[in-house]
């Protein structure tokens, strides 16, 4: 059977319409969620959105550009604590602390990334692992700054404007939903732009990419830093929504969780990791009652994914689609 150009275009059009409808439904559901469900579910949804931003930013670095990193939890944490401290101790308003924390994490990551991304083989990945743990230790032990294991409390919510206040659950939810949508849109346009194509070329074959004139070091550092910066922003959102920070929230388990979320959905597809974040958040909440099993199930799940379909959900979808023809 030969697909004529006409039939192909029709198929593409149908696929596009189908995707738009799905998107509309999902957005619609998210929009009315707090009105129709309990407070608890709204909390979970906020967490899911924040994780989606976190995982999407991870996909930018690892899924699209290539290097495996294990310190995304640390970037998340630095963003969270920076934003919290800027508002708590330095008196900045949220609307200033939020972008500042993103920028700070961006710079931070660039400083580590610039030399780090030159490391060959697995050196960089292992180094990020150490780096993540190092940050956790610093946060844990800088008691005078971060209160260490006692946690940071009473972080203020975002200041209201135009008569809207963000002290209630629902209004905070919508604020975070809007940020989530903005982040996803930003990432989407970024990975589908010329910049995104260059990143993909680096992932696919760094030597060829270099040979056609791409300054691969520069782009890798940029992808790493932008991904980190967005993770920092996600951290800030977390801090001002949940208003309580504890170092263990940002230990290496969180970095592992981000990796799993991205893998479940499918690295390098953007939509995959976002869906993955949603799925994993859901499962996490379902397992509230057996926290000891949580980590084991994560690790087993990670290995299972690697065995069955390392390209995650999106990989499975493609496999099925491929079979259909």
């Amino acid at each position, binding site marked *: 059977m030969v697909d004529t150009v006409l039939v192909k275009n029709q198929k593409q059009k149908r696929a596009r319409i189908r995707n738009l409808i799905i998107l509309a439904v999902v957005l619609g559901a998210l929009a009315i969620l707090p009105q129709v469900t309990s407070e608890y579910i709204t909390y979970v949804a906020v967490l899911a959105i924040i994780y989606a931003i976190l995982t999407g930013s991870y996909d930018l670095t690892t899924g699209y550009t290539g290097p*495996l990193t294990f310190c995304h939890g640390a970037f998340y944490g630095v963003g969270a604590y920076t934003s919290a401290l800027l508002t708590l101790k330095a008196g900045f308003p949220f609307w200033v602390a939020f972008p500042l924390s993103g920028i700070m994490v961006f710079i931070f990551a660039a400083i580590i990334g610039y*030399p780090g991304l030159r490391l060959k083989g*697995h050196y960089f990945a292992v180094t990020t692992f150490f780096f993540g*743990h*190092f940050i956790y230790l610093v946060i844990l032990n800088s008691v005078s700054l971060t209160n260490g294991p006692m946690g940071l409390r009473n972080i203020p919510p975002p200041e209201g404007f135009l008569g809207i206040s963000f002290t209630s659950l629902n209004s905070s939810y919508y604020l975070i939903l809007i940020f989530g949508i903005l982040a996803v849109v930003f990432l989407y346009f970024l990975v589908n732009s010329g910049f995104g194509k260059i990143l993909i070329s680096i992932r696919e074959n760094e030597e060829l990419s270099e040979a056609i004139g791409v300054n691969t070091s520069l782009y890798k550092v940029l992808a790493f830093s932008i991904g980190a910066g967005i993770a920092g922003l996600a951290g800030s959102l977390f801090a001002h929504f949940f208003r309580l920070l504890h170092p263990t929230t940002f230990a290496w388990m969180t970095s592992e969780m981000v990796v799993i979320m991205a893998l479940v959905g499918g690295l390098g597809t953007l939509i995959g990791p976002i869906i993955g974040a949603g799925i994993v958040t859901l499962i996490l909440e379902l397992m509230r009652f057996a926290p000891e099993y949580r980590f084991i199930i994560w690790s087993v799940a*990670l290995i299972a994914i690697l065995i069955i379909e390392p390209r995650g959900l999106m990989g499975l979808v493609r496999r099925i689609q491929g079979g259909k023809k």
Partner: protein
Amino acid sequence: MFLQQLINGIIIGASYALIALGLNLIWSITDIPDFSQGGIYVIAAYVAYFAVKLASFPFVVSLLLGMVVGAGLAFCIERFLYRRWTGRGRIQLLCAIALFFLLSNLAILLWTAKTKIFPTYLPGGISLFGFAVSYQRIVVLAVALALFIAVYFFIMKTKMGKAIRAASQDREAAEVVGINISTVNSAVFMIGGALSGTAAVLISPLYSVFPTMGDLPLLKALVVVILGGFGSVAGVLIGGLGLGIVESLGSVYISAAYQHGFTFFVLILVLLFFPRGLFGRV
């Protein structure tokens, strides 16, 4: 005080060196930074603990048991997991890290997070320069050194050892010459697992058994490998001892809390200026 810390540093450094030796072998042959060794460390310690506590085995037996369990676990991990993804390093690394978390948390699940005291098997000690050094600590150093010498001779003199050396220099060339890489891989993993298991059992009587006991030793051993171990057996030994000493002294004279952070900070600094490790052979 200084000498006390120095001795302690040497002892713990010896354990890092053991793990690092195995990691070094594995990483240089298979290009996998085997994080699972951290988990193997934990499991071996618990097995030895129960052997002594429940079955009243003598320490020597439990030490051998730790070695065997370590070797066996590592063998299975390579055979049934890593081997599936030959040539796909990212997946292997992810699996290694997942196994590390899996095994550690399995220990929490099975045996609770409560620290278990490993019974003293050789009480007493000697007096050295005016203070006491327990026999158990001396055993750690003695066994570690013995194993290092054993591994050294194994690699230099035996047939398998030569195959391992060839494979570590050039995997493809080794295969072309007729060396069975699968066998080499299995051997190397078993050695690594045995070394980690031994280190765990040796350290348990000194620092107790608890599920997260593998975390820091694994990371420290990785630091040793990255900073200089790729070259030689001797390099790993010196590196491990050195790190142990530096840490131990640092914890007293700088800060206990930042002790571990200090190590990583040093690692990151060194890698910044020496992207190929101190004795670089990437």
